[in-house]
């Protein structure tokens, strides 16, 4: 009985998983499998990370990064979902644009950010721009693939009642693609965070996790600081994903009911 309830406790299970990883990395460090000089011990990092949580400057950095992240992600969804619908429903436009899009997709952030620096005089705008650029792809592609997965009979049903293509898009394609899009947004969320930090790292700036990492580079214990800061990036990832999951569960109850064993 207790065994069951333990397994049913999501946060606890997650904590056990994280603790397991922690022990593994610590062990690897202690046994010398991972040289602590090259990569700090897990316990050292945890200590640094805990200290950072009490560091007001660092918290301000986190808030600043989160601001850019949230704004960038929002804009990403607003841009990429309609774009995905446009491309997914207009094959001619899609095939015309495809060479250009596929050309743009593999441009790495290290090449992109310097160019963005030249184009934007405002740091925040620059960050948002690179976030939107990089995070849009998963949303775009998942939207396009989701559209392919819509049950044709559902579309025909609405068409038979005389609804036009836009209404079909809005009332059938959007809801049934939504779970697909949600996966794309979850992917985009972490890419957006990564880009926010990378942009701060490459461009510098007044505050942000990336800026913190730049400053940490001057420390004799730089590695510990840098890894501890990225730990917090990971924690942000966990928190944001938990929120996304909660929202998805509410919005897509119908999807779960149709697909998971109903019991």
């Amino acid at each position, binding site marked *: 009985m207790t065994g069951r309830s333990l397994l049913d406790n999501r946060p606890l299970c997650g904590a056990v998983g994280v603790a397991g990883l922690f022990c593994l990395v610590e062990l690897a460090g202690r046994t010398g499998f991972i040289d602590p000089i090259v990569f700090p011990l897990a316990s050292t990092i945890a200590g640094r990370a805990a200290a950072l949580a009490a560091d007001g400057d660092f918290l301000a950095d986190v808030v600043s990064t989160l601001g850019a992240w949230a704004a960038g992600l929002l804009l990403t969804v607003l841009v990429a979902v309609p774009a995905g619908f446009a491309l997914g429903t207009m094959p001619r436009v899609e095939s015309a644009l*495809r060479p250009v899009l596929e*050309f743009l997709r593999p441009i790495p952030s290290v*090449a992109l950010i310097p160019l963005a620096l030249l184009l934007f005089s405002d740091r925040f705008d620059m960050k948002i721009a690179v976030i939107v650029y990089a995070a849009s792809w998963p949303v775009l592609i998942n939207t396009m693939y989701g559209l*392919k997965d819509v049950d044709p009979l559902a579309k025909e049903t609405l068409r038979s009642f005389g609804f036009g293509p836009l209404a079909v898009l809005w009332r059938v394609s959007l809801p049934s693609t939504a779970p697909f899009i949600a996966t794309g947004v979850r992917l985009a969320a972490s890419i957006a965070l990564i880009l926010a930090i990378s942009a701060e790292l490459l461009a510098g700036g007044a505050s942000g996790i990336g800026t913190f*990492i730049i400053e940490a580079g001057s420390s004799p214990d730089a590695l510990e600081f840098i890894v501890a800061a990225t730990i917090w*990036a990971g924690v942000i990832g966990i928190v944001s*994903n938990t929120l996304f999951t909660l929202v998805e569960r509410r919005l897509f109850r119908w999807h779960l009911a*149709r697909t998971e*064993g109903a019991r």
Partner: protein
Amino acid sequence: MRVLRGLGRLWLVPVVLVAWEAATRAAEDNFFPPPTAIAVRMHEMWLSGPPERLWLTDAAVENIPTSVGRLFAGWLLAGVIGIALGLMLGRSPVLSRFLDPIIEFGRAIPPPALLPFFLALFAAGAQMQIATIVFGIIWPILLNAGDGARHVDRQHLETSRVFGFSRSQRLLRVILPSAMPKIFAGLRLSLSLALILMVISELVGSTNGIGFQLLDAQRSFDLPGVWGTIVVLGVLGYVLNSAFLAAERRLLSWHRAAKQTI
């Protein structure tokens, strides 16, 4: 005929090129050289070699195949691991309860920040670079495969239970095919991510590769060189993606046909 139609689909490319040329010539900005200047530099970097080697230069022969090799190794590895792990997580709620936080954690970490970790685990060079690529691109595959496996039509699963399908049958014949459309979305995303990660992995402690050339050009303030490398990446991305779509069309033909309406 098919070749002609294929070329016809590229009509937008010359339009964009001409517009770009015009815009950069008008702007006269050092950092935005016109495509013609980039082309000249690209020719110089990669195509000014001896004719018996198809005009490829040493730099081209040394850097492009090595990078593409790492890219494929990383992508294939990420594909195999990502699909396997994704299916497992998608079908086992208990496992995913334990591992989800770790995955969400890993996903949000910028891959460059983990370079020291990979440097510690692997020998510098190809091993470490492939590890970086895998780590950076596995998430779309993993997440999409997981979601696909989680959301198999209930009736399909019940059918396979009723007819007593073995575990492997259920996985290979039911879950995998119905997760395929999502998996392909993930694979396609990570293919171009792999190019990006290939570059990133070649920025630290490397001595060759397209990423190294990009770094070298950036460090030497060789702007046409930087742009030339970007163009190579873009062209590679386009070629790889086209090949991928062709493969997808074959493998997912049932899907396309089954979901077709006029």
